[in-house]
């Protein structure tokens, strides 16, 4: 796994993510009840929890896709809450959405170009595409193929690389392991590690608790919209309740 | 012991009978026969929009060819009377038959599409029907249209060529339509059609033959549309293609929409509004069409779910208000027993 070339990541050095007391309502029903999450700069923070605990809602709230009803979201000194997703993207935040959400009738190359939508520099975009191709060789020979025709693993790789195209300083990853064969889950884990190694702060939301715990420097456990437990990765995985609830031990 | 619920039912039945009585004596109350003319037209349109309600309300598909069924029903019974001298009864039966045939012919291609596509394809059918009615001048008399003699039959002794007589005929058909549609929605097939509206895939997964249900709903709307057309033909005794152009498809859409789709009350309110509103706006003469368009837009913005939803809220509120008092009495009655 050759490390991505140096120039992509200087942007990711300094920032930190602070979410304080965020709550969210679907109509009259409150789904998130005042959760607070901090993501260390350059660290992998992961958020685990059962299905419907509010993980994806949190990710969408950060990205501005859903208006939050309380609390603030701050990234790199600027408040994101209340911003339109296109502005959030301009602040260097990239979301690799649940279910990948590719553009099925556009080629791999065009999907990648869309990833760099917020960037104006033509030359650098070409360089980023070349480095992504080095990173994911399988995408090279698929470059003119319609995204809809790729396999599950390839689609996940395309989704991640599309998010990388905007040179994000904060990478939000929503269940990257969804629907992938175990060996591919391993591969995706390696990719996340190396992205983080380059200094990008990663907020990982995963149902696959094992993978999340292995990767994460810091873990938050979310149940029915509330943070029930938080701590360093090793500490949380040692906790019996977590093992019973999430690891089936 | 009359519990709260039964009392509500009795109250409703009483209102039901009162309404029926009022409608039976309506010709006596409404002296100016112009307004009786409007009420007859509204009842005819009630039957037409109830048909539209079946396909639109219960399968969620916006059909724009109800006005074409209206035209087919009118032309079928009209031409049969003019050329073969068929009577009113035979004319309506022929219209029903024609409704089934045309409903299936139009239904097959259009029901294969969904949502907006379905509406546009049905609108294309209305255009097609209008062009055929206008172009086939040998049979249909072309753009100017044709006339038939007033009906000679009479109903329970009242001659049908008078306005009162024809009013009762149309009233009977309207009541039959309500009973039929209510019976159908309550029945097993009715529930299957509603299941198709809620979730087609789910409905087919539990064994509902989705296409057959949609086609059945479409045929029912076609038959009701053709009956309304036949009734209109023998009431006005003259028909021209212009009355069934795409422009009037707008009126059926408005009536279905304003009244609120998928309810039994919707067609009643929608058809009365579509007939009475242009007459009220008649004073605007030159600007009448424009006013009608603007009202349409206002309704879309103000009442996205149609008139019925606020009305049903009002109705349930009124019922609750009346019967809460009774419940209190019963509670006290039961407690001191």
């Amino acid at each position: 796994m050759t490390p991505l070339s140096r120039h992509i990541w200087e942007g990711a050095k300094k920032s930190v993510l602070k979410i304080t007391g965020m709550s969210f309502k679907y109509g009259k029903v409150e789904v998130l009840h005042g959760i607070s999450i901090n993501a260390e700069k350059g660290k992998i923070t992961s958020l685990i929890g059962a299905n419907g605990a509010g993980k994806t809602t949190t990710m969408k709230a950060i990205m501005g896709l859903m208006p939050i009803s309380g609390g603030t979201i701050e990234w790199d000194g600027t408040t994101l809450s209340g911003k339109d997703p296109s502005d959030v993207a301009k602040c260097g935040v990239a979301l690799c959405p649940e279910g990948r959400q590719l553009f099925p009738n556009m080629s791999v190359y065009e999907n990648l170009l869309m990833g760099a939508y917020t960037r104006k520099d033509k030359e650098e975009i070409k360089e980023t595409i070349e480095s992504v191709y080095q990173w994911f060789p399988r995408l090279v020979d698929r470059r003119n193929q319609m995204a809809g025709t790729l396999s599950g693993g390839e689609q996940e790789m395309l989704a991640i690389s599309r998010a990388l195209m905007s040179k994000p300083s904060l990478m939000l990853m929503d269940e990257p392991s969804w629907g992938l064969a175990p060996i591919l889950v391993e591969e995706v884990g390696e990719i996340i590690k190396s992205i983080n190694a380059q200094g990008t702060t990663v907020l990982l939301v995963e149902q696959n608790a094992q993978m999340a715990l292995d990767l994460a420097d810091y873990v938050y456990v979310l149940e029915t919209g509330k943070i029930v437990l938080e701590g360093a990765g090793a500490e949380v995985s040692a906790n019996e309740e977590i093992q019973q609830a999430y690891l089936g031990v | 012991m009359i519990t709260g619920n039964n009392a509500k039912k009795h109250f409703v039945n009483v209102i039901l009978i009162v309404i029926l009585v009022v409608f039976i004596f309506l010709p006596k109350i409404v002296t100016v026969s112009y307004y009786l003319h409007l009420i007859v037209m509204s009842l005819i349109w009630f039957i037409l929009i109830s048909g539209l309600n079946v396909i639109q309300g219960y399968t969620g598909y916006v059909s724009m060819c109800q006005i074409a069924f209206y035209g087919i029903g009118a032309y079928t019974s009209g031409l049969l009377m003019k050329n073969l001298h068929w009577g009113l009864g035979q004319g309506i039966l022929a219209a029903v038959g024609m409704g089934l045939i045309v409903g299936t012919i139009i239904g097959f291609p259009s029901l294969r599409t969904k949502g907006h596509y379905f509406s546009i394809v049905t609108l294309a059918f209305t255009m097609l029907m209008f062009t055929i009615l206008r172009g086939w001048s040998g049979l249909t008399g072309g753009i100017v249209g044709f006339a038939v003699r007033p009906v000679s039959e009479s109903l329970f002794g009242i001659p049908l060529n008078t306005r009162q007589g024809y009013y009762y005929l149309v009233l009977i058909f309207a009541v039959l339509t309500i009973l039929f549609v209510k019976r159908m929605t309550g029945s097993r097939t009715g529930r299957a059609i509603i299941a198709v509206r809620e979730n087609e895939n789910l409905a087919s997964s539990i064994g509902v033959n989705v296409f057959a249900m949609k086609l059945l709903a479409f045929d029912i709307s076609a038959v009701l549309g053709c009956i309304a057309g036949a009734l209109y033909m023998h009431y006005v005794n003259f028909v021209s293609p212009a009355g069934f152009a795409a422009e009037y498809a707008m009126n059926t859409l408005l009536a279905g929409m304003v009244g609120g789709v998928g309810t039994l009350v919707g067609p009643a309110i929608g058809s009365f509004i579509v007939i009475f509103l242009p007459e009220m706006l008649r004073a605007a003469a030159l600007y009448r069409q424009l006013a009608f368009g603007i009202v349409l837009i206002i309704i879309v913005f103000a009442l996205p779910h149609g008139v019925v939803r606020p009305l049903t809220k009002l109705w349930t509120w009124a019922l609750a208000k009346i019967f809460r008092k009774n419940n209190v009495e019963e509670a006290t009655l039961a407690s001191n027993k």
Partner: protein
Amino acid sequence: MKKGSMRIGKVLLSVLLIAVLTSMTAACGGSGSGSGSDGGADADGGAKTGTIVWGVDDSLTGTGAGSGLPSYQGTVLAVEQVNAEGGIQIGDTSYTIQLKEYDNKSDASEAVSTLTKLLDVDKVHFVIGWGSSTATLAAAQIAMTRQDDVTMVVGNGRTPMLMVYNTQGNIFRSGTGNVYDPIGIVQYMKEVGCNKTGVIAMMNDTAYSVSAKQYMEKFEECGIESVGLENFEANDTDFNTQVTKLLHAGADSILTVGNIIESATIVRTIREQGSDIPIVNFSAGTGSQWLGVCTNEQMNNCYTTRPWASAIGATDDGTQEAYTEAYIARWNDSPAQADCQAYDDVWIMKAAYEKAQSTDPLEVRAAMKELKVSDLDPRCVDAFEALDGDKLFDEFNQAYAPYQCMRWSMEEKTWTLAAVVGRNLGPAAHREYVLEQREKEGL
């Protein structure tokens, strides 16, 4: 009935709500408006005055607006002129005319609603206007069943079927029906060089299709070879297909039969296809209407042969010029075909009232039947033909007027009189046509 009664209740409750609502308006609506005609002493005790209310039913919007709007404007112009001169004199009372106008959108159900409202709510006994055929025929069905309540005076609704439904004698028409003998016009066409003529007509209109067939019958008599009959629709906009067919069939002249604007577009299409053959239009329309579609050059070598009474110089006593001036002054729009017809209807009504010397509708109707051409005010635009006994109407209440043939003059950029040619088929042929149709319709 228990299970569903809740929903039935809702249905009938709302229907009741609306029914009660409308019956209330009906009750108050009925008495409110003025009755057909009511006399009354003037406030200052001078000459007694009164008002007569007539209904006007025309297609102000919709497909027929092309003739409906001018027809309404012609009516208003005449009524204003009559009222300006003190209205209608009956005995020592002078009645001013009031109009109650409704738009029937040249549509059957609208015509039924508007006529019913005029009769039941506004209680008028005379309804004039009727600029389009469809609405007129629909209303005629009602006139047949309510002969005592209404008399229809039709202007430009020229469908020959109208008089077939005039079984009760309560429908009058000043505009010449389209059943007429085009022999005069066909001879004139021969003179201007039509040898192989292609016909393009609105065949699905009963009026125009009858005329087109009569033209083609007369072609043989006059030695003109007919090279094809093409069809088009009302409001059609693209005629390339038909024109191409006729030109390729070797036509050296073309006859168009239809509405003003469609005929003008056909002329333009012919000129655009590079042919300058003579074009005869069985159509009317003012110079400006034709120039709205064609250029002056394209109109060269074009003719029109419709009964266009307000053609300058149609009669030599200057009535057409006076009418055209008055119309342009009032509506700053040049007169077309339907307006002068409706204009004459008002003068015919005035003559009937003054002949009957009463405001009773049935007496006025009887007087109108017996009207003589000489009774009419000289300002009548149409040069009505005096039938036997100088009568205006024939036994089916149809009036007759000769036809003019006009040629386009490039200098004056409008139609100029070329010849007074055809006369209509006359009462005998009209009777034969009506009786034959009545039998077919089982009247």
